[in-house]
C-alpha cells in the first residue's frame, strides 16, 4: 500500500502546476484623497498566499485607522499561517476549501471581537469600526468574505460585475424598491453602513465563492473609489490599463481624486495570469487513472 501511494504520488507530480505567486499578480494602493488629512483605510495583499484584504475604518480621531489596521493585521497574520501551512510542501499544496472558508468566517468574527473590546476599553476608540473585504484565491476560484460597503468587482473581458452587495442603508432601500439607482446616486446617505466590524460583539459575515479564469481582473475597493468614479469608468480603466497593474491602480486613485477625492481611496487589484488548480489528492489521481 505504501509503495502504491508512493507510485501514485510520483505520477501526480508529473503534471506541471502553476504556483499561486506565478498565477496571480497583486497590487495594493491606498491614498488619503484630497480632503482628508489622514488615511483610515488599510490594505494587504500576498500573491503567494492568494490573499487580498481591504478595510475602511470609521471613528473619531485616529480610531478608524486603529480599527482597520487591527482587522487587516490580525487577519493577514492568522490566515497567513493557516493557509501558508496547508499550501506548504508537507500538505502537497492542498487545502480543504470548506475548512478554510469556515476559518475565515471565524477569524473575521475574532477580529470583530478584538475591535469591539478595544473600543469598549478605551474611550478614545469608542465607537470605532471598520468595513472589510477579503478575497482568497485557491483552485481556480476566489472566496470573498465581506462586511460593510467596501466592494469586490470582477472584470472578465467586457463584463464588469460587482461580486459583493453592500451592507448599507442605501442598498436596502434599493433592494426594497424605495428608491431608484438614479436617486441612489444623489442620496446624501451613501455611507451609512448596516454592518461593520467592531460595532457589536458578534458580526454576520457574508462569504461566497466565484470562479476565476486566466485574464480576469479582480478589484477590491473602498467607497472612496466607487462613490467618486462610476462603474463604467472603473471598468474602462481596468480594460485599458489592466496589463500594467500598478499603473491601473494609480489611475483609479487619480480618477477618484480628479472627481473630488472626498474620502480615502484604496484599491487592491488582482490579475489572474494563469490556471491555478490545486494539486489533486492521491485518491483523485487514482480515480482519474482508473477512468
Amino acid at each position: 500500500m505504501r509503495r502504491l501511494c508512493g507510485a501514485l504520488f510520483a505520477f501526480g507530480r508529473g503534471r506541471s502546476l502553476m504556483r499561486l505567486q506565478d498565477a496571480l499578480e497583486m497590487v495594493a494602493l491606498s491614498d488619503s484623497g484630497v480632503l482628508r488629512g489622514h488615511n483610515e483605510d488599510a490594505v494587504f495583499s500576498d500573491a503567494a498566499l492568494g490573499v487580498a484584504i481591504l478595510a475602511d475604518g470609521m471613528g473619531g480621531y485616529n480610531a478608524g485607522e486603529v480599527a482597520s489596521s487591527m482587522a487587516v493585521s490580525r487577519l493577514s497574520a492568522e490566515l497567513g499561517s493557516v493557509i501558508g501551512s496547508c499550501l506548504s510542501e508537507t500538505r502537497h499544496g492542498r487545502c480543504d476549501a470548506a475548512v478554510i472558508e469556515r476559518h475565515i468566517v471565524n477569524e473575521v468574527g475574532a477580529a470583530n471581537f478584538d475591535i469591539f473590546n478595544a473600543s469598549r476599553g478605551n474611550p478614545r476608540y469608542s465607537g470605532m469600526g471598520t468595513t472589510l473585504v477579503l478575497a482568497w484565491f485557491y483552485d481556480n476560484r476566489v472566496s470573498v468574505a465581506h462586511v460593510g460597503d467596501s466592494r469586490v468587482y470582477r472584470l472578465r473581458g467586457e463584463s464588469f460585475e460587482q461580486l459583493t452587495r453592500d451592507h448599507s442603508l442605501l442598498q436596502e432601500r434599493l433592494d426594497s424598491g424605495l428608491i431608484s439607482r438614479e436617486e441612489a446616486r444623489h442620496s446624501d446617505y451613501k455611507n451609512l453602513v448596516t454592518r461593520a466590524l467592531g460595532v457589536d460583539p458578534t458580526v454576520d459575515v457574508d462569504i461566497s465563492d466565484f470562479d476565476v479564469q486566466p485574464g480576469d481582473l479582480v478589484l477590491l475597493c473602498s467607497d472612496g473609489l466607487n462613490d467618486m468614479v462610476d462603474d463604467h469608468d472603473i471598468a474602462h480603466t481596468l480594460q485599458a490599463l489592466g496589463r500594467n497593474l500598478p499603473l491601473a491602480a494609480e489611475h483609479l486613485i487619480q480618477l477618484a481624486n480628479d472627481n473630488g477625492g472626498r474620502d480615502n481611496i484604496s484599491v487592491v487589484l488582482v490579475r489572474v495570469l494563469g490556471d491555478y488548480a490545486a494539486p489533486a489528492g492521491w485518491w483523485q489521481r487514482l480515480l482519474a487513472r482508473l477512468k
Partner: protein
Amino acid sequence: MAKLILSMDGLVLKEIPLNKERLTIGRKPFNDIQIDNLAISGEHAVVVTILADSFLEDLNSTNGTLVNGQPIKKHFLRNNDVVELGKYKMKYMADLQAGAAASDFERNAAIRSGSLKMPSELKLTPMDTITRSSVGVASQPKPPMAGPAAAIQLLNGPNVGKELELTKTLTTLGKPGLQVAVIARRPHGYFITHVEGRQFPIVNGRPLDAQAYPLGDHDVIEIAGIKMEFFLRG
C-alpha cells in the same frame, strides 16, 4: 427641517414641519394631520422621515395618493414634489441647508446592527449612529470635466492624416504586446504614460520615463514607430 405645505385650490392652509419620524395623514382624528374630507381615507398615507430623507407611503387609501400627477404606493420625496390627496395638495420642501449640514457630520456613519428593520416596513429607526468622519460634503459624482477638447493626428503610417478625438478619460495607443501608451484626460490637461512594452513613448524626440508626461499643444508623439501630433481644439 423639511416641511410639507398643505394647500387647496391654491390657498395655503398649513405648514407641516417634518419633525417626527412617522407622520400620519388621514380623515380620522388620531392622525398627525387630520384632513376632514370624505375623499380622504381614515388612514390615508404616512410620511417617514429618516435624517434628511423622507418617504411617502399610501396606506391603501380608497382614492389613492398622487405625486407630481402619478399614483404612488411608496415614494422617496424630492424637493418640490407635489403630493395630491383628493383636492388637497402638499408641496414637499426639503431643507437643503440642514441636509448639507447633516451630511457634513453624519456621513459615513454606521448604524448598529439589529436596530434596523426592513425598509419595506418603512420603519427605519437608525439609532446610535456613529460618526465615521467629520469631513465630507454631499457626495454627488462630479459631472464630466470640461477641459478643452483635444485630438491627435497621425503623421505617418497607413492611416496618415487620420484624427482621433481624445474624448474618453483614457485613450490607449499602440500595439498590445509590443508597445502601448495611454493618454489620460484630466481636469488640468492631458497626460501621456507608458503602459507596456520595452520601448517607451517618445515625445518631441525625447523618450519618456515611467512618469506621466503633460502634453502641450502640437507635441509630437512616437509610439511603435507611428508618429502623431497632439493638438488642442479651438
